[in-house]
């Protein structure tokens, strides 16, 4: 390697290294502060860890009481990663996202560099991304969006380097991680293709997609006839902003800064139209798929960095105000990440949840069906290793709407006959209830619906209880 290359590498390292150190620290924090007796965060991460035990299986006997499984490459990658490093799947589910997070940051860095972003903006954009709540969530909690985002970033980097022959296959690989991430990436690629007027690749991609149609013998998946998120627009707003309690929401300070960034971009009028359209597309997509925020976050980070640079270089009439604004912005961004780390560190499942499923696993028969609110379904199948009636994996789920309606009836009915008929229909043996369900997620009162029946009817016996969980056995 000649001297020039070495010095360039050294210069690159000088900017990248602090960023990498920061991202490693930030992404390790949630697990560092999490109770050591607990393992993963959320339900999805446990589910993928379970599926990774047998990643090529196309039938899941525990989800929806047994269902066909649409192939998702994420459990396979998790399994390969676990074998390659010789670590168990739980550790793999913690480590893989962090490693991919580092990769994502590097890819973002090189994309911005290729776009000839100035050094300060580049550094700030990466820094804001590294400490943004959606980024920390995405690369801490093992989820299916991690790899499609990496692939999308990689294919965009390749496209920027004019390596289309590699870029399109890389991009196409996102389809193996779910339809939603693929469609989001496709929308972004379309915007890029229109902007660069390179339609060939896009046509090719659509052609390959058409070839896939005969392969799909399953027919179209059942459309969800229910809203799987509470309270419509208010809830959307709440989840959009991290400070309002949104788990993967954007920081309000990053949003404010990005507005300054947008104003700066607007100086070039329609020169950056692709960016505006991409942001608008992702905002619209957000109303259908919350996780499109994970993609939007990259744009917001970039715009926020542009906003900060604009603020730094604009003429300041008051140094004190300048200084205070700077401190507030730093505090605001830091407070967002602190709250996010705290939330993730204390996220469910807690020890009570894990203990309750350990009990269920110990005491129940292997083919027992456990009923709960569908959000808890993945815990039932992953932690309890028992069949659930329904979980959050809706894609090609059997009789999805019927199961949802039955679940709702069972949760809210005070009519023992109606409850019994549903219990018999799904052969439910246990009912698992936690405090979140009792405090608004399902019920608001202690004597509402199923809660009333459980206490009033002799068809149910409380089998297990701790501070957070109740498990009722169907005895009648």
């Amino acid at each position: 390697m000649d001297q020039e290359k070495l010095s360039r590498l050294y210069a690159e390292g000088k900017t990248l290294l602090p960023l990498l150190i920061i991202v490693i620290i930030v992404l390790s924090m949630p697990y560092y502060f999490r109770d050591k007796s607990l393992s993963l965060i959320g339900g999805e991460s446990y589910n993928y860890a379970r599926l990774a035990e047998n990643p090529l299986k196309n039938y899941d006997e525990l989800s929806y009481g047994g269902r066909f499984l649409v192939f998702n490459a994420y459990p396979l990658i998790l399994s390969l990663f676990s074998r390659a490093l010789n670590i168990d799947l739980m550790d793999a589910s913690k480590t893989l996202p962090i490693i991919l997070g580092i990769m994502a940051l590097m890819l973002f860095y090189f994309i911005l560099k290729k776009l000839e972003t100035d050094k300060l903006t580049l550094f700030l954009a990466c820094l804001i991304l590294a400490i943004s709540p959606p980024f920390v969530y995405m690369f801490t909690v093992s989820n299916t969006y991690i790899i499609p985002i990496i692939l999308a970033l990689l294919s965009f980097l390749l496209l920027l380097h004019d390596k289309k022959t590699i870029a399109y296959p890389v991009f196409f690989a996102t389809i193996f991680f779910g339809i939603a991430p693929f469609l989001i990436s496709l929308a972004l690629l379309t915007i890029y293709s229109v902007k660069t007027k390179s339609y060939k690749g896009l046509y090719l991609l659509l052609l390959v997609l058409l070839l896939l149609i005969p392969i799909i013998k399953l027919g179209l998946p059942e459309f969800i006839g229910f809203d799987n998120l509470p309270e419509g627009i208010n809830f959307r707003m709440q989840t959009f902003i991290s400070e309002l309690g949104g788990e993967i929401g954007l920081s309000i300070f990053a949003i404010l800064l990005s507005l300054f960034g947008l104003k700066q971009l607007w100086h070039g009028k329609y020169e950056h139209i692709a960016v505006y359209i991409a942001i608008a597309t992702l905002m619209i997509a957000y109303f259908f798929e919350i996780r499109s925020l994970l993609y939007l976050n990259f744009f917001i980070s970039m715009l926020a960095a542009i906003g900060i640079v604009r603020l730094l270089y604009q003429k300041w009439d008051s140094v004190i105000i300048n200084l205070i604004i700077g401190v507030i912005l730093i505090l605001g961004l830091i407070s967002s990440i602190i709250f996010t780390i705290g939330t993730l560190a204390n996220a469910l499942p807690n020890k009570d949840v894990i203990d309750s499923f350990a009990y269920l696993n110990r005491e129940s028969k292997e083919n027992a069906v456990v009923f709960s609110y569908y959000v808890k379904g993945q815990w039932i199948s992953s932690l309890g290793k028992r069949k659930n009636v329904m979980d959050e994996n809706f894609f090609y789920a059997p009789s999805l709407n019927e199961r949802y309606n039955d679940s709702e009836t069972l949760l809210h009915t005070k009519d023992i006959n109606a409850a019994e008929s549903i219990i018999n229909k799904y052969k439910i043996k246990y009912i698992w209830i936690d405090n979140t369900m009792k405090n608004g997620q399902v019920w608001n009162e202690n004597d509402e619906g199923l809660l009333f029946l459980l206490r009033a009817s002799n068809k149910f016996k409380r089998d297990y209880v701790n501070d957070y969980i109740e498990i009722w056995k169907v005895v009648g």
Partner: protein
Amino acid sequence: MKIKTFDIVFLIFLFVFVFRLFFSLQTAQFSDYDSYYGLRQIEYIAEHGSHITYDELSYGGRDVLGIPLLFYILALFESLLGTYGLKIASVLIISSLIFITYIIAKRITENEIASILAALCSGFIPIFVFKTLNNITPYSIVYPVIFLLIYSFYRIEERFYLIMFIALAFLLPLMHPIAFLVAFSLVIYSILCYVENIEENGTKKDAVLLFILVTFLIGFLFYKKAFSVIGLSVIWQNIPAKILSESFKGINVFDMIINIGIVPLLFGVLGTYFAIKNKNKDVFLLISLCITGIILLITRLLDFSTGLVLLGITLSIIAAVGFDKFLKYITITKLSRHINTIKFSLIIFIIITLILPSMIGAVGIIKESTLTDNEIIPFLWIKNNTALSSTVLADLDEGNLITGMANRKSVFDTNFLLVKNSDKIFEEATSLFTAESEIKALELITKYDIDYIYLSENTKNKYNIKELKYGMDEKCFEKVFKDGPREIIKIVC
């Protein structure tokens, strides 16, 4: 000896101060039941040095958010001078608004007479007097701080006012969520300046940004928990929908005119017209405050009386422009010979339309809304004769008397923030006053763990009842206290 302008302003301040103090000192009690929550906080601060962050008595226990700065200031006076000291301090703080409105009016008109008239109007906005007379409310300090902030914004190029602005920019969001309203006003102000092509000074632009950022930062730091628990209902302070709609029910334009006062409204509108015509950017900020208030009132995001008070004070200040233009206009007409008579008539008009209604209203408040000695007896009885852990059901307004005066748990009170299902609690608790079925009532009594029910004269009148319809069963409901129409029923089954 020539009277200086400042002497007149000081006289107006003294007049407002004495007026408020006179009515406040008529009684040892407060005219707003929510004041008893404040009193409890103040007493707690005086004793422990910090405020109650977890209220065990309200709704069976809930977190208290924000920093009640006013309570800290009043705690100092309370510990030195007792309840009367607290009243004096409270009146002193709210009366100081006269000086602030005067200096703002002077700044925007440079006309002393007009500014004096504006200051006089601001002291006697009827709804402002009714809502802040003889009570402990954070608004006593919030309103002066808002207008002081505005004044310091005007003069932000000067170092002293820059420091003052920065200090107040931190103080206001710490004191009250109304800071979001001011932040919103500053955004509207920037838009107005942009639309009207007014080049705004750089420091002011920075100041707007600073205030918005500080408000968001502090707001989210303090109210994050509330946002995550009750979501966007925080904006409505989680007030049950029924109460919100009740507070706007039966409101008509005539009421609004009377509450704000004809003079501030008339001259305020006139002032607004001239300010827009002359592109007076200082007045634009006040207009922005009015626009924000109106938008929030229309969207019912702001409590009706708070919105009107803010509108009233702001219009009083803008009215200075109206007075200025009116008086200048008179001087160029044939009426100029009678200018002093006109000025005098204007004062008489202010007295008739603002001071007199305020005075009559104040008499009514002290007579009708203030707790009498007889009304206190039941709460003292509860304090002395019930178990410390008892839960008492009283009507919504009296909830703070149960916690503040009787020191017992209330089923519900007016502090709704962080209360889950506030709508349902409100509906069920109020239904206990009118319920007919004993079974249904007992179900709710068990649910809320109620030990006593207090029926005041107001409660009986409000729900149009003479007694609890389901309370005939003596095995279950024992009347343990009766004093005239006031009674306390113990749940014994």
